[in-house]
């Protein structure tokens, strides 16, 4: 474990030195994963809400499928996106392979099932509480969905965090569709993989610590928002 102490020291001095390359990589990681999280929330929250309030044939099957997709391996998502965005693939003309956009697409696909499945559960629980009252108010589906999303907003923040955590930590998808190109598509996780393959385990671990610190910071901010809200007792 001599590497660990070295890694901690290196992580601290990396951050302290304000290394330009590191900042670039950190910012790209955040841009890719936060954008993917936001996009997956747009799609996933809506899907989750629809699954929570509607009853149709095959609904249980859809729920089981979405829950299963939470375990989607990043490498498989990466491959699927690669096959579509490759110049030889159906969307090759867009020229998106090896760009941050491709990475955002891959991570969005990866975490949308997580956001969908978890928000479906959160919203369905809330709906079971509100359903009779809402029927008494004669609300439309759209009004119900909007009310549920708004009232569950702080629980849904945690759902978004679960998605973000998965996105920022995954390497399998972004390394395939991003290519880990220096100054273009290199993010924290692919940089860690690269340093590991160079045998520079201390630097890899130091980058890992920085990544964890970033994830921690994002969680602290969100938790702060949540706690403030709870103190005002809207949750």
């Amino acid at each position, binding site marked *: 474990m001599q590497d660990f102490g070295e890694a901690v020291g290196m992580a601290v001095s990396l951050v302290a030195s304000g290394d330009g390359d590191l900042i670039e990589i950190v910012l790209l990681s955040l*841009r890719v994963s936060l*954008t993917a999280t*936001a*996009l997956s929330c*747009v799609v996933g929250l809506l899907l989750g809400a629809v699954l929570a309030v509607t009853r149709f044939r095959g609904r249980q099957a859809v729920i089981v499928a979405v829950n299963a997709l939470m375990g989607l391996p990043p490498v498989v998502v990466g491959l699927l996106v690669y096959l579509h965005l*490759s*110049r*030889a*693939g159906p969307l*090759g003309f867009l*020229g*998106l*392979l*090896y*760009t*941050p*956009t491709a990475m*955002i*697409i891959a991570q969005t696909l990866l975490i949308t099932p997580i956001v969908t499945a978890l928000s479906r559960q959160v919203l369905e629980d809330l709906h079971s509480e509100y359903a009779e009252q809402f029927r008494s108010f004669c609300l439309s589906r759209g009004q119900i969905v909007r009310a549920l999303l708004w009232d569950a907003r702080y629980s849904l923040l945690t759902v978004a965090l679960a998605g973000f955590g998965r996105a920022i930590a995954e390497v399998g998808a972004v390394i395939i569709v991003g*290519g*880990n*190109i*220096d100054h*273009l598509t290199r993010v924290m996780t692919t940089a860690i993989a*690269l340093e*590991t*393959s*160079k*045998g*520079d*385990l201390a630097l890899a671990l130091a980058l890992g610590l920085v990544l964890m610190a970033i994830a921690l910071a994002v969680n602290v901010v969100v938790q702060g928002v949540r706690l403030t809200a709870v103190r005002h007792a809207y949750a």
Partner: protein
Amino acid sequence: MRTRQTVLATAIALVALALPAHAKDGAILVQSTTSTANSGLYDYLLPMFQDKTGIRVNVVAVGTGQAIKNATNCDGDVLLVHAKPAEEAFVAEGGGVARTDLMYNDFVIVGPADDPAGVGGMTDVEAALDKIAGSGALFASRGDDSGTHKKERALWAEAGIDPTTASGGWYRETGSGMGATLNTGIGMGAYVMTDRATWISFANKQDYEIQVQGDEDLFNQYGVILVNPEKCPSVNAEGGQAFIDWLLSAEGQAAIADYRVAEQQLFFPNAPQ
């Protein structure tokens, strides 16, 4: 309505974030191997080329097999790998314009300092492989159809041994890149065949040493190929050819020769003059 405006603004911001940061700026994409990228060669060469031509070079570092596959899918402008027969096949099938020798180095077999198979100092690689197979000592193979893996399989074949019958036994196929395979091999005390450049720049050597080297069968030739713009219209032929021309020029060749790690030269230029 205020919320509607917020939603609209958020949507626009998301799309802006998701779209490419900058339009294609004439950059070229090189599909290459982990050995060249991990050794730091590109970090040394590319700024020189960019200063001279203004062309940015993006490098995707994967195994040779994967690199050729990506280039076959038109996902790249230049292919820089080290598996001559596969490269020639790629050109013959119309994937690339022409293949040119660029540089070489050599492969070595590294092993733990106590050298359980007793191959230390041997210069006949087939004999050394034979001895490793007979000793029951572990051998970690890339197992990923990379250039190094192809070379290693050819050497086993020449030694008349089919190590895959012992796969999972003393023959361990990691299915990973060179660095990952070294990490794994060193972790389990196995012999590993690696290119010298990766080994010299590899930072997690522990007690490992080069045990076998110097056989001319261990020669490791790198070639460079422009992806065929007739087959792949998306190829930046101009930029790609400029990069290849520079690599093959006296200036590029000298730059390759000048690159050193730990005061050792990693690659030896041998482009046809």
